[in-house]
């Protein structure tokens, strides 16, 4: 799974994002949902969601941005 972003009006739902991007439920991590990343302006917010690699590469650049990496993160310690 990879991260993609989409610009939608404030208060948008995952279903709206999926429709906007032309994605099916199978292609999206619905457990992760739609996450608000930034409020771009009063009428538009930037959201993130996790989608399959194939879906990420199919997304129309005019509709969404990405894909972005979703690397592993680990604690910094104790050093080994």
């Amino acid at each position, binding site marked *: *799974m*990879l*991260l993609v*972003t989409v610009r939608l009006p404030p208060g948008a739902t995952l279903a709206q994002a999926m429709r906007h991007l032309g994605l099916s439920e199978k292609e999206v*991590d619905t*457990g*992760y*949902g739609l*996450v*608000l*990343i*930034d*409020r771009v302006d009063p009428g538009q917010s*930037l959201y*993130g969601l*996790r989608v*399959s*690699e194939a879906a990420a590469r199919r997304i129309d650049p005019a509709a969404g941005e*990405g*894909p*972005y*990496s*979703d*690397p*592993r*993160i*680990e*604690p*910094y*310690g*104790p*050093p*080994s």
Partner: protein
Amino acid sequence: MRVLIQLRPSPDVVAAVADPTVTMTTADVSSPLPGVVLDPSFAPVAVPRPVPGAGGDPLSLHQPLTFSFAGDQATVLVRGEISDDELSTRLTLLPTRRREVVGVFADPVIEPILTCGGDAPVGDWRDVERLLHVAELASEGMDGSGVALAVLDTGINAAHVAEHLGRDVILDSGRSWNPGGVSGTAGRFKVDHGTMCAFDTLIAAPRATLIDIPVLLSERPGGSALDGLLSDAVAALAHLRTVLEDQPLESRSLVISNSWGSFSPRWDFPVGHTGNYSDSLAHPFNLIVSSLDQAGADVLFAAGNCGRDCKDGRCAYPERPIGGANSHPSVLSVGGVDTLGRRVGYSSQGPGRLTANKPDICSYTHFSGSKAFGDGEPDSGTSAACPVAAGLVAAIRTQWPSSRLSPAQLRTLLRRTADDRSDVGFDYDYGYGIADPLEMIDSLRRTARRVA
């Protein structure tokens, strides 16, 4: 190359050098030597002659010896420098051209042995408390009261923290948050890395309110090698923005401590790819960090444990290991020093990938504290240095919410008042230096008077 040159000047000169009541200079013991720049700042040192016992071997040092400082037996050392490209020639010619030259020896740079992973603790958390001037902070009303302090890690065991601190711990379950798929209750997670971090935040800010975000426990299923957990950190920060925005604007204070990072470029898109994380401010995680900073949150990240002297075995970046949000311009990147003020050998050095001047500052690590990893084990890594600094930030926020002092202003204050360890301002080992609470308090007092 710096060298030590052993000379045998006249016996009266040797005797004068050996006499502690007499001050001798390099010029007193040696005329200029060809090809050698003598160091006049180095006071000549008398070297005794080893003397074997009666019937002993005059050439062996492996026998009972006495040592003579007599003027006709001892020698004298001076210090100098020989150009690297003339070194072999000069080393050969010097003793033959100048009879007083007995020998020429390397004078290698010596450095203190740095604390590394696996080393015993250097001091304990009470030492850190003293170094952070926690009593003085408290007398200024800076104890973290009312300040939300989020620990994004492996979850907190509050009972363990309270037991080892010897005092109550305030933890807000309501504002804590689990990533999807993570079960468990805030404050009741297994004792591990997150418990160490929580303990360390409370050294400087004993009355801060902990918010438990066990983001490192999440392992989302996925279909590619890049599947991982940074997306959970995105969601965690989105949650924390709601925590921040629920606070009244005039008293907002949220400190976010992050002692984690991404160790390998294999887990990321290549540098230059539009979806790359390590080197791109446009990555969604780096965007949400920027937005939280603008909303008034203080975001701190550990610089990492990939220092050149003794890096963590997981470090896979061949250079510039401080990347991604750990090097973000809107976060405070924290390197580690031990309680003696020396950089720990594993603390990552700059330049950073998103911002060159990283780490920003250093704070204390490798001390006996939470005992989260066992009785003899230190709170270590820049993992400990980051929450120690986060506690200091939370202490300041008690009196200085983000409406009075923005996160950017607070970072500038920390850098400006830090104890510079290099004497040259910023450097890639210590950043601007070790966070100095007394200097910060003084500066904030002056600011308060100016504003009043």
